[in-house]
């Protein structure tokens, strides 16, 4: 438990003139579920690929499960399970054939027993002869996860595993992740979904290649130091117009009939909102800042170097 599962520092990756990942330093303790968040194209996938030996970092170094990410890629591959963003098993092979292939590559023996157990755990025994390509999104995801954990890895890296999966399948997927983590597995999972972020022990937020926040959800929200006010009443649309660009106001977001107003400068925000509320006949009261508010704020403040 002493050495962290992941400990990387200064990871940098450039594609041509574009720096996709810029000096990312990250530590994940053993048995922890770490959520990896950030907008599209922020460098999440590239960071994960560098950590599991699929990309060579241009700068920086680190250890994954105590192994050097540059020199010990082979050993890392044997002890890490990596689930790609896009389904990347063979669609023209059956479920069982895919599992058999994976078991063979990891040198598991006996292959038959491993495949049988995995099929049973998945509840796919009756459908084992079905082509993987014919599975629905949710089942593909379950198959991919099962194939990734088949060789009993110590670390699981999941790249947006629940994209395009329905809420029930997502819920079951996360239950499974927690079960695996209780068994001592460390999990790094990238996601867009705020509810999923809240199911992680800790989260790291990356934007345009920069890691800009990490900690538990409560810590990240607290560290952001944002103040949130909620306006209710018939005049919220008019209030939204007046609040745009007003002093202290950084974000305005309608939620149904209410209006969330977020700002870094709490005092200025309170003054502005009170003024606008009076003028438009809305009721204003302070509210909890949500993780989503924090992320929108973080996205707005970090610069876009993609262009």
């Amino acid at each position, binding site marked *: 438990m002493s050495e962290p599962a992941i400990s990387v520092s200064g990871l940098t990756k450039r594609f041509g003139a574009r720096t996709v990942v810029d000096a990312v330093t990250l530590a994940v303790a053993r048995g922890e579920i770490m959520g990896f968040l950030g907008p599209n194209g922020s460098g999440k996938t590239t960071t994960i*690929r560098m950590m*599991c*030996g*699929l*990309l*060579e970092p241009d700068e920086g170094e680190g250890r994954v499960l105590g192994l050097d990410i540059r020199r010990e*890629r*082979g050993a890392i*591959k*044997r002890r*890490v399970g*990596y689930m*790609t963003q*896009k*389904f*990347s*098993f*063979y*669609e023209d092979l059956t479920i069982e054939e895919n599992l058999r292939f*994976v078991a063979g*590559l*990891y*040198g598991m023996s006996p292959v038959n027993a491993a495949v049988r157990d995995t099929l049973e755990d998945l509840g796919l025994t009756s459908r084992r002869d079905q082509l993987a390509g014919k599975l629905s999104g949710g089942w593909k995801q379950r198959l991919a996860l099962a194939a990734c954990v088949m060789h009993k890895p110590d670390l699981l890296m999941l790249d947006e595993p629940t994209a395009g999966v329905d809420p029930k399948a997502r819920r079951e997927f996360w239950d499974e992740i927690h079960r695996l983590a209780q068994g001592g597995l460390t999990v790094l999972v990238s996601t867009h979904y705020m509810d999923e972020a809240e199911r992680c022990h800790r989260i790291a937020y990356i934007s345009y290649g920069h890691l800009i926040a990490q900690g538990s959800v409560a810590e990240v929200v607290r560290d952001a130091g944002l103040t949130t006010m909620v306006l209710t009443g018939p005049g919220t649309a008019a209030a939204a117009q007046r609040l745009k660009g007003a002093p202290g106001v950084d974000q305005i977001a309608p939620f149904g009939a209410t209006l969330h107003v977020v700002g870094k400068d709490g005092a200025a925000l309170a003054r502005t909102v009170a003024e606008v509320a009076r003028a438009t006949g809305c009721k204003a009261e302070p509210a909890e800042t949500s993780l989503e508010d924090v992320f929108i704020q973080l996205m707005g403040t970090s610069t876009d170097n993609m262009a």
Partner: protein
Amino acid sequence: MRIGFSLGRLRALLGKETIQMRRDRLTFAMMLGVPLVQLMLFGFAINTDPKELPAALVAPTQDRFTRAMVSALELTGYYRFVAPDATAGEAEVMIARGDVSFVVTVPSDFGRRIERGDTAQMLIEADATDPSVASGAISTLSTVAASALASEAGRPPAAAPVEIVVHRRYNPEGITQYNIVPALLGVILQLTMVMMTSMALTREIERGTMENLLSMPATPLEIMLGKVLPYLAVGAVQVVVVLLAARVLFGIPLVGSLSLILGGVFLFVLALVILGYLISTVSRTQMQAMQVTFFFFLPSLMLSGFMFPFRGMPTWAQWLGEIFPLTHFLRLIRSVMLKGATAAEVADSLAALTLFVLGFALVALFRFRRTLD
């Protein structure tokens, strides 16, 4: 609903296609470059009336009549004496190996007989495994010989001063199939083996399974062998079919050793599947792999001696031809099947094929990207 034709829509479609064509640099370069390269290559290299074919001379007494005959033969443009002083045994090996296309034998009493006014004999053995090699060179013979000797002897020739005996070796009837069918085995194998394996990695990349494959513990050598070995089995089936057809349908003789042929075929197919795999390590899409395969395929067909006699091409084209495994395979299979060449006589071809196997494998392993970089 109106079914119409809109120039605006057509323009939009044309615009999009043009942009896509321009973005795909390799395709664009191939479309412009390939016709030019191949035109130059084949335009200059291909010669259906091959001249300056290598010949060996066996003449124990090199008297003036012999020299006159030899220079007359050279003047026809068809013969180039690379071994002007060979023994009968040496010449036999050379023609069996394919180093020379002709062996000209002038007996020791040639000059004496001419001076006496008797009819002298000389023997020209032609390697008729490729019938087109022999035809032109032989058809001009008698007139050349008569006039050469007349001027040398300083008097009008007797009725028939020289009797030229022509042996069309290995294929006395000049049957084209003898030359083409064994070679077709090589061409068929090349087309299917290289094309199939050139898709090996690009298919994984296009289907997105490459990322997963690389994230699992498989070494480059394991991946390469896993990709190419199944095609050896496919190749084996093709070999059996073609060899049976050669025997049963075309009646091609099998003079040499079957196990030597199979050994050669094995090396050749191994070279081909690894070459295909090599192409797949440098291509990004299946389309590119296909284009590279064809870019390779056409010159190897033209310059290997499959369509035109290898020795009839200019020297630079012969050098170029040596870089194709097919060239060496054709030499091997024609020598062994039709001439009964032994392993020692085709050692060069076997060595060349082995070099191809090792060379391609090394480059492919070196080119293989273990990461997604």
